[in-house]
């Protein structure tokens, strides 16, 4: 299978802290690759290196075989890498549909002069992207909410809108940073299915950062585990779940076991 993204010995240093330490990552086309790891392991930093926010001090990031480190973020986006953010970052006082339309930006052909004259070509292009944007909204389940300001949307809808905006970039690779954070289990399930659907429907490769193991273990083709900036394990969900190092550093005994423990404690107290 073709490799979409390859990271080679990527390292990012903040002052004295090596946030990402010689990480290798190979993501095949059409897969869902998850990155997990304790808080502060360097997952988001790795995303930032891939999407052009940071220039890694060391190592290469290759997208479809081309080096992309050091490129500005808009160029990276134009090449086909789109992302969402751990703390939602929408254009708050723009409507939902406008948020999505901004995503089409790298593919627009018309400029300020044609916009001024309103040439037929320009008008057609605009019509086209309004349509496309609302179809995308529909696709992510926000049909009919297009005219709402982003800040007025419920939390879950904002997460979806971020994804819609990213999809409008027409990416080949989508980076999702904790898409289910702050969602309740029911909503999380819906989001999980949706992510899989994006991959299946659109053939977009997805890299996912997530702390919710029900999501990660369910939809990942491949999981990489970071700890203190270093990759400590890689494999399919089964392998990862069984890896003692991962359990020790990250997974712990698991939610079910925990709540059992508390329940016992409580009855014990009583």
């Amino acid at each position: 299978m073709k490799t979409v993204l390859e990271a080679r010995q990527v390292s990012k240093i903040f002052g004295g802290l090596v946030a990402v330490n010689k990480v290798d990552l190979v993501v095949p086309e059409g897969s869902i690759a998850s990155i997990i790891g304790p808080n502060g392991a360097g997952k988001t930093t790795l995303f930032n290196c891939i999407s052009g926010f940071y220039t890694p001090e060391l190592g290469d990031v290759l997208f479809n075989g081309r080096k992309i480190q050091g490129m500005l973020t808009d160029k990276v986006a134009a090449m086909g890498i789109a992302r969402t953010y751990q703390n939602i970052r929408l254009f708050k006082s723009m409507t939902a549909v406008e948020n999505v339309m901004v995503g089409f930006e790298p593919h627009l052909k018309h400029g300020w002069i044609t916009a001024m004259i309103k040439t037929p070509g320009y008008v057609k292009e605009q019509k086209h992207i309004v349509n496309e944007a609302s179809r995308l909204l529909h696709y992510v389940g926000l049909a009919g909410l297009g005219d709402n300001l982003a800040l007025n949307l419920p939390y879950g809808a904002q997460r979806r809108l971020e994804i819609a905006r990213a999809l409008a970039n027409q990416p080949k690779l989508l980076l999702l940073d904790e898409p289910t954070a702050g969602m309740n289990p029911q909503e999380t399930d819906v989001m999980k299915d949706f992510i899989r659907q994006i991959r299946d429907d659109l053939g977009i490769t997805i890299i996912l950062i997530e702390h919710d193991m029900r999501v990660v273990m369910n939809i990942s083709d491949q999981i990489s585990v970071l700890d203190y900036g270093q990759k400590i394990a890689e494999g399919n969900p089964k392998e990862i779940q069984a890896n003692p190092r991962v359990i020790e550093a990250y997974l712990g005994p698991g939610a079910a076991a925990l709540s059992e423990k508390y329940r016992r404690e409580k009855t014990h107290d009583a």
Partner: protein
Amino acid sequence: MNKQSIQKSAASGMVFGIIVIFFALIGFTVVISGLIQKALGQSLGVGQMPSTSSFLIFLGLLGIWNGWRASRQDKHETLNTKKVLGRSTIAGLVAGVLVMVYALIVGVLDNRGINLRTYLSQLSSESVRFFLFNQTIVVGILIHVFYSTLMAVVGGFLALASERSRERVKSTRESIQKWSQDHWLGKLQGNPYVSYVLMGVVLLLLVLLPRTWGAYWNYVMGTVGIYVLLGLGLNIIVGFSGQLVLGYVAFFAIGAYTFALTTSPEPHNLVWNFWIALGVAVLAAALSGILIGLPIMRLRGDYLAIVTLGFGEIIRILLRSDILKDFTMGPRGVRNIAGPTLFGRSFTTDVDFMYLIILAVLLSIFLARRWQESSIGRAWLAISQDETVAQATGVNTQKYKLLALSLGAAFAGLGGALFASRNQFTGPEDHALMVSINVLVLVIVGGMGSIPGVILGAFTLKGLPEILREVENYRLLVFGALLVVMMIIRPEGLWPARRPKLEVPVGQDNEPVHLPATVGGEK
């Protein structure tokens, strides 16, 4: 009455007392009384003090307001006679006593023959006596206390009465609203033809008014028009693309001087055609926008503001400096700048010029609207809200920020050229920091990002001080105060921006989810 209520009343009285004293200290009491006297149709001789009765009217109004405010402390409570009487008496008394103390001090000092004006320039003997109603000190201060209390009580009862009638007012207003909604007038709203008719009326006015209202108003309105141009331009930069630029006057100056130097016989004797020079001025300003913008695109917010402010100052100082004297005429400025010509005929009367300005304004409004509503406007808006993310979403932020800067600069260049041409003169002092500040103020007072707001803002900012000429030396004082009050009352501006609604085709629920054609793998 509880303690809190007493405190509030006293505080209100205190504020009003201080206001009265402040007015007296800056001589405002005399000026306003004079205006009242004139408004009542009584003449006022030169250098004469206004009559005591007009002063009493002024004080009375303030006193009534005091009582009113003190009485209505909480929106939710219902007033009664006892409450009102207590509160307004306290407020009036406190204000009165404060004023009394002040009057006593200045009265005694003045009686002793001390010249207060050495330190407080408005306190002439005459005005001190005027403040005491031309009575002896004792009588004067007693009148103050008594009158202030009385008027506050009147104000309190007015508040009571108004509250009693408020229900009625409210129901009347509601019924009017209802009527206007039901009635054909209400239905007309939102009818596209109505806006065409309205536009027609405005156009007609624009054609007719310059012919009728005379040179002064043409001049004032011309200035307003030029500031509308500037405002529209800065609005592109600040309002649309979110870059705070405090040196906008630099582009104005570049436009004005380019035009001036290419059309004036002195110092270069170029004397170009008006329209060519106008075009060159606009281009020069736009180009300077790009040149300035290129190195500073990384700057954000207030850093950008101060760099551009510095740039504006650099331009102004250079224009008046000795090193550029031979090129720009130094502090003297360029005179004999050309007026417009068309088909060989020069049209430089105030009316002609007004039409030219109106034309330029209409064109600019058109352009600004087009850009705002286009994908360019959308990209600007995205940048203004979150530049980092906009860039990561694929918006070429550098390009768009530069574009905004140079388009905005072009408007300023046009404004500058028209300004220079109309005055037939331009000098470094035309391009001081205050111009940048004024334009920024009008954009924000009007409503940032809003084109009608800019127009309204320009009228407010450049028209208001002209109207305030009636209050002479107090006009800037009043203007400053109004600016603060306006921001507090309407922080979003007089006419806030609204995003145009897009016609979003709503997907049918039963429609199968099918994929946007352009989305995803283009295999």
